[in-house]
């Protein structure tokens, strides 16, 4: 029997029971829609989180003090016996090949007083390279000056939100603000940067790292951030950094984490999350599959006579197996298509209603869903179709 003919035969059988076929494929459709919708949300969250992290640029490497033998990053702020990361360490990394910037980083939370107002905010102790490393731009005034002398002067650059809160529409440049117990002069205001995972990046103040060490009474840096040229291999740069610091420290008492590694790990975690959520949707797909097994079993029983006739007309067992398998695969695939449209439709609707809600349906998911539904049809059809092809034709013809 030609494939086109078998297909037509199966489709005719499906159409001959419109309502029942529709309800059966609806079962699969709901399952596929659930899987598509849930994985789309998973993938949307995945992309959203990765985008959040890569807004700082992906060619960033972080160095933190202390070496954790079991891997992972040492918790910051907890005193360790390891040698501290120093301003000089940060400075020395600026000379490495491919490295285009390196900033020491110290952060804390302090009260900022200026223009007669008081606000508690995040304070970053950094140097001139920071703006470049975190792809931030100055809106008015200038950023922290370069050089050893300039680096330690009591200047502050305000985040746009902080500036707004303290100075409103007044010109903040040249104003004096007090942070903790220290006094600073405002030399610039940053462009708004938005939020990162819900944290307002504009409610900040940037001061020279040395001042921050003084402010928070620390001896070592919390982290050094290095940015390297686009296109350079992160592994090569990370290795160069390790070498340089090992030379300076005499041993590896620090941890180097590239943004690339971090994103990869994060991506893996999010992928697992997406799969787990998809598996949840898969439960409803299982129910749909059971529906197909049921309806195919009923169909084989109802059409016992027809099966006997087909054998009498010279159909081979394999042909009969194929006809019934084809029927269940087509049924499931139609359900898959409907479910796909349903899932994508709901996903788009969600995006329309809640524009900030991250949903994304990659093509691979759509194709995967269709392949999966066809596969379910195949598995669900095997038993009933096998029964059909093993019927005794005499019994089948005698059946009423």
């Amino acid at each position, binding site marked *: 029997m030609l494939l086109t003919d078998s297909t037509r035969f199966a489709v005719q059988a499906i159409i001959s029971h419109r309502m029942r076929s529709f309800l059966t494929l609806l079962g699969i459709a709901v399952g596929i829609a659930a899987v598509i919708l849930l994985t789309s949300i998973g993938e949307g969250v995945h992309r959203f989180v990765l985008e959040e992290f890569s807004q700082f640029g992906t060619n960033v490497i972080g160095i933190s003090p202390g070496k954790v033998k079991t891997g992972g990053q040492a918790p910051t702020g907890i005193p360790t016996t390891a040698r501290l990361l120093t301003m000089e360490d940060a400075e020395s990394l600026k000379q490495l090949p491919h490295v285009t910037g390196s900033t020491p980083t110290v952060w804390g939370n302090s009260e900022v007083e200026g223009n007669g107002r008081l606000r508690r905010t995040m304070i970053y102790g950094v140097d001139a390279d920071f703006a470049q490393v975190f792809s931030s731009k100055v809106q008015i005034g200038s950023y922290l000056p370069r050089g050893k002398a300039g680096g330690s002067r009591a200047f502050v650059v305000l985040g746009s939100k902080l500036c707004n809160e303290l100075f409103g529409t007044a010109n903040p440049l040249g104003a004096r603000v007090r942070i903790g117990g220290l006094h600073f002069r405002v030399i610039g205001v940053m462009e708004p940067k938005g939020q990162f995972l819900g944290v307002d990046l504009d409610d900040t103040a940037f001061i020279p790292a040395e001042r921050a060490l003084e402010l928070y009474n620390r001896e070592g840096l919390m982290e050094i951030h290095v940015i390297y040229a686009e296109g350079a291999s992160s592994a090569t740069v990370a290795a160069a950094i390790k070498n340089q610091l090992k030379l300076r420290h005499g041993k590896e008492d620090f941890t180097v984490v590239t943004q690339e590694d971090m994103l990869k790990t994060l991506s893996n975690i999010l992928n697992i999350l997406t799969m787990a959520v998809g598996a949840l949707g898969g439960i409803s797909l299982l129910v749909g599959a059971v529906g197909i097994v049921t309806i195919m079993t009923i169909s084989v029983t109802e059409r016992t006579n027809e099966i006997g006739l087909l054998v009498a007309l*010279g159909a081979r067992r394999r042909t009969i197996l194929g006809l019934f398998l084809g029927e269940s695969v087509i049924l499931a695939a139609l359900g898959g298509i409907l479910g796909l449209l349903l899932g994508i439709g709901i996903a788009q609707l969600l995006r329309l209603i809640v524009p900030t809600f991250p949903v994304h349906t990659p093509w691979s998911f759509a194709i995967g869903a269709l392949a999966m539904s066809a596969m379910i049809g195949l598995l669900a059809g095997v038993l009933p179709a096998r029964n059909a092809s093993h019927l005794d034709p005499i019994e089948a013809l005698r059946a009423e």
Partner: protein
Amino acid sequence: MPEAAESLIVLNGIDRTFTLGDSKVHALRNVNLNIAPGEYIAVMGPSGSGKSTLLNLIGLLDRADAGTYQLEGRDVTTLDPDEQAKVRSERIGFIFQSFHLVPRLTAAANIELPLTLSGMPAAERAKRVSQALKEYGLTDRAQHRSNELSGGQRQRVAIARATILRPAVLLADEPTGNLDRVTGEEVVRLLEALNTQGMTLIVVTHDQALGARARRQIRMDDGSIVSDVTSKPSQPT
């Protein structure tokens, strides 16, 4: 009796037993039969005497428990299922009391079914089906489904379907059993016309008058052939 070499069907010592629970039913007991090409045979006998079982066996829908079966000089007793299917497709036509039309298919599609199953290309099928529809006077019923056809029309569709691949043997199990007398007559005349064209015709029937029309009459009782009479060619009424 014709020579074995020129026989169409040779059955030798055929036994067929059905097991129903603990009891065994001997549906065929030591059946020997020799059928020449082009014969017209009526198989008669009481209900349960094994007529259908014999027909199913000849049609390769069933296997004998003992004995041999030669079809056109070839031993078909031990063919594998696929080879059997091929023989059924090419050499055997079945006609049933209850027609067995596929209800969701049109008359034309029902007639086309053996061609479709054999893998014939659609264009060639269409030609043959329209020819068959014309021959059986069903052209204006081509697109009707089984439930829109009369009993006689249904059986004509079934006959067209059984003969579209020009089988050597036509096996009809009580073909008029579900038809009124007049329609039954029509159907029998159709079958006889096919026999006249050279197709071997084996009809199982309860109807004495109908059986009497066949040149050769086989009587069965309790699984055995009790009489096998070949009469002089009778004149069709």
